[in-house]
């Protein structure tokens, strides 16, 4: 980064560490003093590409590659217009296509390809979708909302943890002080030998410690039983509409190209069933009847082998 420098006065960051590089909409760099000198009147042309520029549009260059600065600038502008969200589309595929279109516009504007035409397309889009753009202006995308939620949660947790440790420390300090005082009092008054008292005291101290530890283990609940975090705005996203044609049943039409097959219930009457094995009771339990097999066999036998030509 040390070899970054102003293309006009050739000062580099190495020679002047406080050098401030600026970049304008065309994506060409100038240092701050050059900007002040060249744009005294508030506007002028870019030294490198002759684009008319305004002084107020100069920004501090954030990135090493000025084209990235330019692209981000353009992208922010485009995103203000193209601000449809995922739920404005009926399918993911359409949303992805839309994203690609957006990307294409940014790409063209950054690389100066068909700038005028692209700008026109943008204008048309803006006119057509004015309502949606207005509506979406205040809305965050779904993902951003998630992020915000996470951040909030994190903050809350940190705060809570800080408070807890603070309280814990105080409580421990107090408890220790109290037990020490109690020991001193007892030593003063009691007639029991000091060693026993000390041992008792030690026992109590360990008990206290285990108690404190146990308390620590208890984790406080931070969510309702429904799973919604406490004190949290609930995002009410509309459910994605699914547009699909309903399924409608169409009976299949079969051409057998052979003699007519008798119906299933007629088989017995026509005497076909006399020639097949009668169904056993254990077969019938599953819904089988000898007519089924017979019908199937007749269907196979009667269907024509060859398709009639023409």
């Amino acid at each position, binding site marked *: *980064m040390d070899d970054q420098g102003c293309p006009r006065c050739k000062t580099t960051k190495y020679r002047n560490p406080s050098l401030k590089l600026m970049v304008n909409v065309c994506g060409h760099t100038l240092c701050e003093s050059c900007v002040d000198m060249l744009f005294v009147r508030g506007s002028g042309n870019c030294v490198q590409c002759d684009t008319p520029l305004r002084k107020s549009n100069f920004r501090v260059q*954030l*990135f*090493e*590659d000025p084209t*990235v600065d330019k*692209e*981000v600038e353009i*992208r*922010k502008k485009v*995103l203000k217009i193209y601000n449809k969200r995922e739920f404005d589309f009926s399918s*993911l*595929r359409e*949303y*992805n*296509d*839309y*994203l*690609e*279109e*957006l*990307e*294409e516009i940014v*790409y063209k504007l*950054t690389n100066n390809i068909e700038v005028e035409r692209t700008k026109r397309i943008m204008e048309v889009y803006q006119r057509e979708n004015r309502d949606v753009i207005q509506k979406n202006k205040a809305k965050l*995308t779904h*993902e*951003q909302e998630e*992020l*915000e939620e*996470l*951040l909030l949660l*994190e903050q809350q*947790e940190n705060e809570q*943890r800080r408070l807890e440790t603070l309280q814990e420390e105080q409580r421990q300090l107090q408890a220790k002080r109290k037990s020490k005082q109690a020991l001193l009092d007892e030593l003063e008054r009691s007639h029991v030998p000091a060693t026993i008292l000390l041992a008792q005291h030690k026992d109590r101290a360990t008990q206290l410690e285990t108690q404190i530890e146990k308390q*620590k*283990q208890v*984790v406080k609940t931070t969510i309702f039983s429904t799973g919604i975090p406490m004190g949290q705005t609930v995002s009410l996203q509309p459910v994605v509409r699914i547009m699909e044609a309903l399924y409608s049943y169409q009976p299949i039409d079969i051409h057998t190209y052979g003699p007519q097959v008798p119906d299933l219930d007629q088989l017995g009457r026509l005497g076909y069933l006399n020639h097949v094995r009668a169904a056993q009771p254990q077969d019938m339990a599953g819904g089988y009847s000898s007519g089924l097999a017979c019908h199937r066999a007749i269907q196979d036998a009667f269907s024509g082998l060859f398709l009639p030509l023409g």
Partner: protein
Amino acid sequence: MKLNIEGLLVYFPYDYIYPEQYSYMLELKRTLDAKGHGVLEMPSGTGKTISLLSLIVAYQRAYPLEVTKLIYCSRTVPEIEKVVEELRKLMEFFSKETGEKNNFLALALSSRKNLCVHPEVSSLRFGKEVDGKCHSLTASYIRAQRHSNPSLPSCRFYEEFDALGRQVPLPAGVYNLDDLKDYGRRKGWCPYYLARYSILHANIIVYSYHYLLDPKIADLVSKELAKKSVVVFDEAHNIDNVCIDSMSVNITRRTLDRSQANVDTLQNTILKIKETDAAKLKEEYRRLVEGLKEATVARETDIYMSNPVLPDEILQEAVPGSIRTAEHFVGFMKRFLEYLKARLRIHHVVQESAPQFLKDIFEKVCIDRKPLRFCAERLRSLLRTLEITDIADFSAITLISNFATLVSTYSKGFTIIIEPFEDRTPTIANPVLHFSCMDPSIAIKPVFERFQSVIITSGTLSPLDIYPRILDFRPVTTASFTMTLARTCLCPLVVGRGNDQVAMTSKFETREDFAVIRNYGNLLLEMSAIVPDGIVAFFTSYIYMENIVASWYEQGILENVQRNKLIFIETPDAAETSMALEKYQEACENGRGAILLSVARGKVSEGIDFVHHFGRAVIMFGVPYVYTQSRILKARLEYLRDQFQIRENDFLTFDAMRHAAQCVGRAIRGKTDYGLMIFADKRYARADKRGKLPRWIQEHLTDGSLNLTIDETVQLSKHFLRQMAQPFRQEDQLGLSLLTLEQLESEEMLQRIAQIAHQA
């Protein structure tokens, strides 16, 4: 020996067995029966490995449908080799006993660097170079290009393997790394790919932790391993750190510069391809519109292990429109990089959570969370489409994209710390962005979820209840086993005072204290006079060791010590250390012994064993607390407290004590071995520290060996060493700590064995 473990026939390749091994196998069998996870602690040198192997192999034979595979994870290559050797012994014993031909396939897997047989590639020195070179010879599109242009270089081993190797499975047997290489050379097949392919149908796999825990590697190697496997993590006392390291990302200015170069290359390649072969990009685009359906199907059908870097949301949705085309994605990466660069240009330390980071990045460069989440996957797809040959070059941008995916996926369990300089050199600007994982359970969760039984075992896992808590799983068995000894061959002593009654401690306030340093010196001097052969001394850190050794030199202590023994010192440099170690061993062989000064958490403390005369005494100077001022550690402690209700002090003590136990455990590597363990810090005498040592050390730590002065220590040590120096034969052990089959089956012994396992 043939054993009957609750109705299971186990072949044990030795004639004698330790009672604790039997007990260990009992617990292990119960764990496998319950199809649950287990935590088992058994002292080093009591044959953990062979007990594990023989029981699980027997189980596999008896219930081939219940347990199909054993995955044995160890830490280093020598350890992997050791396991394979034990396994070979077991298999030979088995075929000798039964007369059947062994039909088990067991193999070790390691990196390309250890397995490559290609003459040029294998001569490269670094693992990364080998990987890169191999990839440039064997990647699928390179091989496709070769069809049109046969002059391109190729790896004939891989080509041969690809043509023939998959048809015939590797014949049954036990293969270590060298066996694989031999087999590969003989057949002309690439051993690395052969091993990687063969682990899918092998019965036993032995490899490193990282193949299972590091999401990047696990995704390539282990994701198709069968569900009904038993996973064993040996020497797992550091497993939480391995998990954390595998998920953490550190980004420096250099990483950013390199990934900037990567982005430029990507852009150029895209331009070139657009002119020559626009259809390829179109094809990729079409696939991305459709979504990552294939991966979803695979995961749903449960073929793959889930990958923490590839969250489920990604699989259900298509890549968002804003990064669908290649140019837009490159623009996106550019913005992301510039944002990171801007963030690294700071002058004070910043710590923030993932949501804060995401909010800031949206405000500054308008990057949403969703495309970030898809970043890693999108980059992988682009690299594949562009057919980039040298993947190794793109490690920087891959790292960045992994970071993007992780930061947008996990809102909890990670923290971002940006430090403008290192703590030691506050004047030199060297900004680093640490994206550090604080929750080891994230990386290991897929393993627990996927595999039927996971066994975590080591010599030092005390206190046992903390591992299930920090790794977030519910074990069905947790047990600690002690060493049954025919003679007390270990002698832990806590030295708390010098001869002048000044307390000895490495506490921060008294670190520089002249009296403490002198007392430490006197202790070493006295021990060097009475201990035969080698002494290993551990310090808490390199800096502390430097300070102490310098003032010992000034006080003339070193000179006196050197009258008794030679001194060797471990340094942060690996080559120097291995040299020192070699010379130390040579000096020990020569009879008068030597002293090795080393550092807890260093290389020596973790992987090197000091058997018999190489380590007759270990002195642990101070309590090896981790550097507590590090912000990453602080964040982790806070997280542990909030999420797992583990107090800072508990964890720090636990961590310090497991390292101390590792250090002193270096000296005892078996029942015939003996050694002094000297804890030179008065804080070891406290119940909270002592209680966290492994049970097998605690048992021998009596009230009489606490808070000793140097004189008393010398007396006790002399007595102990004289006793131990008596000849010790196997017959002395028999029936007490070493059992034959008949002894094992006696009623009385079985009763005693039941008491060995200490249920936590």
